[in-house]
C-alpha cells in the first residue's frame, strides 16, 4: 500500500482520497478509522459511504455480525466493529445498554421497567429499545449519577 501526502496551504478543508481497485475489508477499516478521528462515523447505505456526525446518531446495534447505526430517519451499516466504536465513544455521552447495543444518552428520554421485568428506553424520536439490567450501572456512571 502506497501512502502519498500532498501539502497545499491554499485548500480550506482537508480532503482524503483513497484510490483502490476494489473495496476490501482492509479499506473499510481505514475509512472507519479516519471517520472516528473527526467525531463522525462512516456508514454504508445503498453502496455509498456517508460520514454521520456523532450527535445525530441515536444508537448502534450489532445484528448477525454486522453493526448498524440509526439516526432519526435513516439506518446505516457501520464500517467499524462494535467494540471499536465503544472504545472511541468512551468519553462521549454514549453507553452500552445491552450486549449488542450502544445508545446515545443525549437522545434518550427515559428508561422504564415493563410488566414482564424488561427495561425499555424511550428515545426522543419515540423509538423504544431494550436496556439490559446489568448495564444500568454503566449508564449511571456515564450520566454522572
Amino acid at each position, binding site marked *: 500500500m502506497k501512502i502519498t501526502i500532498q501539502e497545499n496551504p491554499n485548500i480550506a478543508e482537508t480532503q482524503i482520497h483513497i484510490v483502490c481497485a476494489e473495496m476490501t475489508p482492509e479499506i473499510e477499516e481505514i475509512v472507519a478509522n479516519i471517520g472516528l478521528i473527526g467525531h463522525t462515523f462512516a456508514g454504508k447505505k445503498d453502496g455509498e459511504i456517508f460520514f454521520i456526525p456523532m450527535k445525530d446518531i441515536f444508537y448502534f446495534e450489532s445484528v448477525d455480525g454486522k453493526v448498524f447505526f440509526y439516526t432519526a430517519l435513516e439506518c446505516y451499516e457501520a464500517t467499524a466493529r462494535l467494540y471499536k466504536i465503544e472504545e472511541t465513544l468512551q468519553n462521549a455521552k454514549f453507553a452500552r445498554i445491552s450486549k449488542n447495543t450502544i445508545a446515545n444518552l443525549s437522545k434518550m428520554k427515559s*428508561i422504564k421497567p415493563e410488566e414482564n*421485568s424488561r427495561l425499555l428506553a424511550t428515545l426522543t424520536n419515540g423509538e423504544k429499545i431494550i436496556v439490559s439490567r446489568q448495564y*444500568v450501572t454503566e449508564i*449511571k456512571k456515564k450520566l*454522572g*449519577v
Partner: protein
Amino acid sequence: MKTDLKNYLFSVMGMNACIFFFLSLLVPNAVTVKLFHLMVCVSIPFSIFSFLTFRYQLFSKHIWIRRAVVIAFSVANILLNSYLFGYLQPTKKHYTIYGIAVLGTMLLLIFTYYLSDKIEKKNLKAINQKLQNNKD
C-alpha cells in the same frame, strides 16, 4: 441463551459444591459423594426450570408470578435435598422445623426481590431525572 444457561448452571453447581463442602465439615459421616451426586441431580433440573421460567416467561409474563414459581421451586429443592439426606422425618417436630425453614426461605427470597426492586426504582428515578435535566 446457551452461554447464559451455561453460566447459570456453573453457578448452581458451584453453590452446591460449597454447600456440600461445608456440610462435610459439619457432619462428615453423613455426607458422601453419592449424596452430592443426588443433590446435584435434583438442583440442576430445578435450576433449569427456574432459568426458563424467567427467560422464556413459561408461566406468565407478570414478574411476581414468575418469582412465585421460582420461590416454590427453591422450597421444593430444599425439601427434596433434605429428604435425600435423610433429615425429613415424618414427626411433628420435624414438620414444624421444616415448616419454619420453608417459611423463612420464602420470606428471605421475597424480601430480596422487594429490596432489589426498590434499589432498581431508585436507580431508574435518578437516571430519568438526569436524562430530563439533559433535555432542559
